[in-house]
């Protein structure tokens, strides 16, 4: 029997109940969220459960929502069950003052560099990561450039009016 979004959802609800929230299906991809401290339990269950079997990590990244108080940073996991060919998206939100999130690098070797990249650009502190340091930017950098408060270019420039081209 094909693994449908309904089956995945009911299997997860059976295990975690009301702990999982925010069920959505944008463009057909099952999306849900949970408390950030549950992330390893959820990922491990998705990995181990014989029915679910989400054992391939496609992508891990973060998104910054400066207006969501207490939930400014979202860490987004894209997982893939290659046998059934189903993808899901799992998000956790963390505050920006103390962005501690448990690392998934013990479960997925692929998460190692992806978490370093996420740390590099958003400052998400992956607790337990074996080598959490900057990867693409220089080590001396003091800020996390993909956060929304950092402008793309030097704001003192007067020769260019960015308002006409995209986001102001």
């Amino acid at each position: 029997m094909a693994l449908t979004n309904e089956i995945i959802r009911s299997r997860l609800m059976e295990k975690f109940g009301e702990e999982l929230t925010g069920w959505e299906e944008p463009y057909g991809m099952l999306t849900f969220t949970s408390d950030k401290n549950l992330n390893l339990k959820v990922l491990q269950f998705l990995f181990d459960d014989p029915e679910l079997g989400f054992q391939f990590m496609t992508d891990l990244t973060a998104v910054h929502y400066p207006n969501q108080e207490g939930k400014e940073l979202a860490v987004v996991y894209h997982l893939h069950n290659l046998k059934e060919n189903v993808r899901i998206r799992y998000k956790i939100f963390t505050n920006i003052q103390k962005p501690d999130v448990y690392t998934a690098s013990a479960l997925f070797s692929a998460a190692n560099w992806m978490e370093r990249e996420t740390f590099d650009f958003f400052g998400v502190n992956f607790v337990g990561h074996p080598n959490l340091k900057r990867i693409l930017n220089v080590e001396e950098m003091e800020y996390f450039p993909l956060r929304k408060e950092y402008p793309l270019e030097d704001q003192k420039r007067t020769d260019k009016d960015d308002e006409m081209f995209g986001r102001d």
Partner: protein
Amino acid sequence: MSEHVTLPEGNVEKHTTTINLGPTHPATHGVFQNIIELDGETIVSAEQTVGYIHRAFEKIAEHRVPYQITTLTDRLNYCSSPLNNFGWHITCERLLGIKTPKRVDYLRIIIMELARISDHLICNSIVGVDSGAFSGFLYLMQYRELIYEIYEEICGSRLTTNMGRIGGFERNFTNEAFGKLERFMKEWPPALKEFDEMFVRNRIFMDRTIGVGPISAERALNYGFTGPNLRAAGVDYDVRIHTPYSSYEDFDFTIPVGSTGDCYDRFLVRDQEMWQSMEIIKQAYQKVQEFKGAEAEVYHADVPDFYLPDKKDVYTKMEALIYHFKIIMGETHLPVGEIYSSVEGANGELGFYLITDGGRSPYRLHFRRPCFVYYQAYSELTKGGLLSDAIITMSSLNLIAGELDA
């Protein structure tokens, strides 16, 4: 004769040698640095440093409108730019709910498979160079030139192509373009056959690559390998089959897989993929030729909000002028949405994770770059091997610095 120097008491002799491979080393084919710890000639550990050509594409993309982002995607895997361009266009089309005409899909497939050939051709001949066989590289280069001439005829540029638009191509393929494609289809297979004869059963090449830098299917999956590197380890995952895009479901082709995941298997998988790409191109060209009359003139979908109108219409028609202005100035708003869309890039699954908030540019755009994900396995692949094996392992992974560093 020199005497053996005895170290002062309390000092420990260092048995390993640290060497820097890269960032500008002729054998690394790009800006890669590896700090390698050697015991004699055996690698004890290798630590990669990446980011030398990081250009903050994800940040720039948050301030650009879709057609301006196409030029950023060119510079990811620059050995097969059209694949990235179309990957981005397909992501936007999925977000906007645009259905492209069949002829556009088939034309795209011709170009995407040409791009795959040009990428694999470079990778495989570089594996040859790193094993000591230089002539294959020089010999195949002239066939990449034929592919680039086709690109040039279609979009005007060769390496960073910026090809196509949301909805299709900027203009119809000319007869010269099809003529150049026919020439390539005629001249390339004999050249590839000759290249195969030179390498595939070559004793020296086999000894040099079999069992070098192997990875098991299980480890490869855990490391997030995709593309030819994963298939060489024996997993038949291919986005073209698993999540068909651009009408790949209309084509009949096979996915070659290896078993050991070593350099030789990676070479063979890429080699067979080039033959399969030729099959796909043949089928696609035939399908394109079957369109007659008005259908044979279709080269884009009808999406006035994102597809630039013809220049002559801009000069003569009010509506076309308005759309032209709106698109160029980035006045068109994207719908609110969140989508992950991927294509089978030349070295793996190239994914675009796009979040829009109703503004003109993406709220967040993340590129899932295949070689960034699998390069982290390099340390594990080379450990215990020889230094010369590390070089050939690196070239057989098909690492592209532009994609790695985004």
